[in-house]
């Protein structure tokens, strides 16, 4: 069994007094592609933000590469973040820069590489995501799927050891969906990186991931391989994986009784 690159131990987090994460324990092994799934607002992105050191747990700890992330000083945190890459939900490309400058951004900020080498590296990264030739375009000229792929090229610019994806499949057409899914798997294996995909796209992610954590209401309710999840008997997982309308997550918002409010008595 390979060692863990990221480890969450009894992580609790609350905004004011509203609990978001309740005792999360997770372990992300090196070289693996792991998905965190759950409904919108269940705390998935909050977990990524803890791993990136943006948020600090109210209890428990997050260890990345053997170091507790929220105990690092600002320099240490920035040094750690240089080893990470994060793909945001809608790419978060810098809209005032060309595709080339977006991908070259981290290379220029963090290295002293000469412009010719940066140029070659950017071209290689764009080629890896199938977008060689778009370097002079502005982000506004790209389709949603292309923007996501450029953002992916920017994420892997410095060959990170850990790549995090926040809803990489949201709002993509079926072709882009497959392309992005394939790229995530391929880049993870080619770079020897560890990848964490936060998503609610079950079918696409189950095709590519090694392991899945299911989160509901800030707690892990199921975990296992893609096959384990497909075969799971847990009611919530079943409803989620098969997209059933009613189940543990009710169709109706929990309000007053409809008939009582209408004055109709059964």
């Amino acid at each position, binding site marked *: 069994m390979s060692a863990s690159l990221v480890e969450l131990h009894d992580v609790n987090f609350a905004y004011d007094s509203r609990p978001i994460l309740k005792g999360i324990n997770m372990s992300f092994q090196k070289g693996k592609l792991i998905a965190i799934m759950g409904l919108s607002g269940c705390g998935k992105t909050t977990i990524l933000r803890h791993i990136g050191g943006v948020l600090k747990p109210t209890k428990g700890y997050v260890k990345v590469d053997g170091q507790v992330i929220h105990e690092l000083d600002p320099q240490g945190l*920035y040094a750690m*973040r240089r080893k990470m890459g994060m793909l*945001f939900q809608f790419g*978060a490309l810098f*809209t005032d820069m060309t595709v080339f400058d977006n991908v070259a*951004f981290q290379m220029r*900020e963090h290295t002293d590489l000469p412009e010719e080498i940066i140029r070659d590296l950017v071209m290689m990264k764009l080629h890896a995501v199938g977008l060689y030739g778009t370097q002079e375009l502005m982000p506004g000229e790209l389709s949603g799927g292309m923007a996501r792929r450029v953002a992916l090229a920017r994420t892997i610019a410095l060959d990170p050891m850990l790549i995090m994806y926040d809803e990489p499949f949201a709002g993509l057409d079926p072709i882009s969906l497959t392309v992005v899914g394939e790229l995530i798997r391929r880049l993870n294996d080619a770079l020897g990186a560890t990848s964490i995909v936060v998503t609610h796209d079950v079918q696409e992610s189950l095709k590519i991931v090694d392991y899945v954590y299911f989160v509901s209401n800030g707690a892990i309710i199921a975990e296992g391989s893609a096959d384990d999840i497909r075969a799971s008997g847990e009611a919530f997982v079943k409803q989620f994986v098969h997209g059933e309308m009613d189940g543990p997550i009710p169709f109706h918002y929990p309000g007053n009784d409809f008939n009582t409010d209408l004055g109709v008595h059964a």
Partner: protein
Amino acid sequence: MNIVGGLRGIGKRVVNAVWRTGYGARFFVMTLRYSGMSFRRFRLTVREIFFSGVLSLIIILVAGMFVGMVLGLQGYETLKRYGSESALGSLVALSLVRELGPVLAALLFASRAGSAMTAEIGLMKATEQIDAMELMAVNPIARVVAPRFWAGVISMPLLAALFSAMGVFGGYVVGVVNIGVDEGSFWSQMQASVDFQHDILNGVIKSLVFGLAVTAIALFEGYDAPPTAEGVSGATTRTVVESSLAILMLDFILTAFMFQGA
């Protein structure tokens, strides 16, 4: 119950205002602290000078010209009553260099460049570009905020100087070319009455202070904007309102110190 609710509401607003002031002050200190990159990689600042300074040129020059022309007309009408038309040059120049140049250029700068800065940073935040930068281990205050801040501080005195220069030219066109005030006395009176240190330098100091205030407000509002359409639009409005009030208030304070008893 209503009284308690009302008091609670007032208390909440006061606490929020104090908290926001503290946050703003901290943001300003952080901007100064992380300003190194703005000078080490000066092309970042030059790029922002282009966006906030150069692109504001047209509005500043046109407005300066018209203000000078109005000053020429109104000044001539008033001075004629006392038979001092020849002092028109001094009146136009002193009004512009001491007051109208710095103040009006700053008000225009706040509406043109300040609002654009707020909207740009607010949208960068709403589209997670600021978060992305932070997670790429690049400090957004150093990379995004500080170059814009220094660009504003550098641009403002230059824009105010150009505003005044265009105003003087506008006054000349109306007073000398159009009305027929003696050209020699127009320029010589101006030269005799405008003092470099007392008038021009004080005007430059004013525009520097206004540039600092407008840019700091615009950047803070953008950075603090809630990441929604309403949030960004509200922040843009606040930038223009707060900057305008800050300019007029600071102008009074600075004028009181600079020209009292002069």
